């Protein structure tokens, strides 16, 4: 029985699927939804915006709010509670940094636009290859 599950989420449909799967497969686990804000983008607006914010913590939470709202909605459908956490920068690095503290990672197979994939590559694939803990890729 796994007790600590990390679910990295962006605003994509696949990420929502991953959370649903995690809730179904690990009903008794503590699930943490991780959102990585300010990743590489076509003009680096997100990253710079956060760097220039007066309160980094607050600005990051604001960025993640939509994703977390959606995550809480999904969790509510399963009568489950989830924790949320926000990290900054490159999604792969940020997720890997957190993965150590968990027993498994459940991640959507892909998300984002073609451009985003060009800048950071396929996040799920990289997590799958480099994660220190077992990874479930939801497709």
């Amino acid at each position, binding site marked *: 029985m796994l007790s600590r599950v990390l679910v990295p989420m962006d605003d994509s449909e696949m990420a929502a699927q991953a959370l649903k799967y995690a809730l179904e497969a690990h009903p008794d686990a503590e699930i943490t939804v991780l959102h990585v804000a*300010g990743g590489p983008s076509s003009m680096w607006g997100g*990253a710079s915006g956060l*760097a220039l914010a007066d309160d980094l913590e607050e600005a990051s939470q604001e960025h993640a709010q939509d994703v977390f709202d959606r995550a809480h909605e999904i969790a509510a459908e399963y009568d489950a509670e989830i924790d949320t956490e926000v990290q900054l920068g490159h999604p792969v690095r940020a997720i890997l940094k957190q993965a150590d503290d968990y027993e498994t990672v459940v991640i959507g197979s892909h998300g984002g636009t073609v451009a985003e994939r060009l800048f950071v590559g396929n996040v799920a694939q990289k997590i799958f290859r480099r994660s220190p803990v077992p990874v479930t890729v939801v497709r």
Partner: protein
Amino acid sequence: MVETVLLVGVVASIFVGFNIGGSSTGIAWGPAVGAGLLSKVAAAGLMTFFVFLGGWTVGRNVMDTLAGDIITIEISLAAGVAVLFFIGTGILIANVFGVPVPTSMTTVGAIVGLGLATGTANFETIGWIVSWWVVTPILGFWVGAMVGRYIYPELNRRVQIEKSEGALITIDRSGSLPRPALGPNSTYGELTGTIVVLIIGCYMAFSAGASNVPNAVAPLVSSGALEANPAIFIATIAIGVGGFTIARRTMESVGTELSDIPLLAALVVMTTAATITTALSWIGIPISLVMASVMTIVGLGWGRATRPITARDAMRGETDTEITTGALKAEPDTPVTKIGEEEHEEVLSADDLFNPRAIMKYVSMWIIGPAMSTLLAYAFFVVVPGVA
């Protein structure tokens, strides 16, 4: 026959101009429109006028480079049309996939490909252009970093650009002559701020015209099939049409990217990018507005993220440089845990936002894009020698 080829060329020019209008209007006016300071239609109108001004004046220097200096012979009409198709393809890829492929670089790449295939490449000019392409991002980054580190925090404290409810300016009809007055919630500061945003937007539009008008038409101007003046008109109209139509979307997409940074920062970025772009266009270097903009954005964020001490500490005079490595570096003050709030295991670090490898990966696209364009054009002109 020549008329048909020219017609195809002009259509290709219009396609290129139309797409340039879409993307550069987004960059020039996205922040102002996003801040609700002017309408999209007004933005497109101002864009068209200042693009024309930029193309008509400074743009001629870039036109000369593209049309006459990169290769030692003139670009024949047929070859010019082919080059335009390569430029158009680059833009299409950029727009469909949302990847920043700088148009100016694609253009130069395609013309260099033609030059290599025909053995007419002018390596002196090409080297000169490429060296500026290396310097520009570094310059943009440096200016951004300096401002972000030393000037921005102070600037941010002093300058507030806001949009209040209601019209900015109303007409005061109480006197014998109607005269403009500030709107219900407006302040003089807001009026000044709005005017500054508009001026900088126009400056950006001007530099977009200077650097981008030649991309759309220079391949046709080279052979003399099209005179420079009507060519500038054609390009302006095409860019304008793009500004009034597809820019509605790009002002949102590119605008959102730029709106992620505070308006004040966007203004710093635009001023820097427009100045670099105008100056290089002046000396005839084809340069992309996007390139200067993006690197200034990265510089600004990086400079702010890695500043050695927080502004508040500096004000208090607590600048013990001995201990800047850890506690005082970059992170804002450790957040006070509110009652009932879960304790954060790690404090977020803005340093993480600018991973050097991610930036390198991004910059590599500026090498791949023009390299692909050069290779494809070279292959094409070798395989189909009749065109060149």
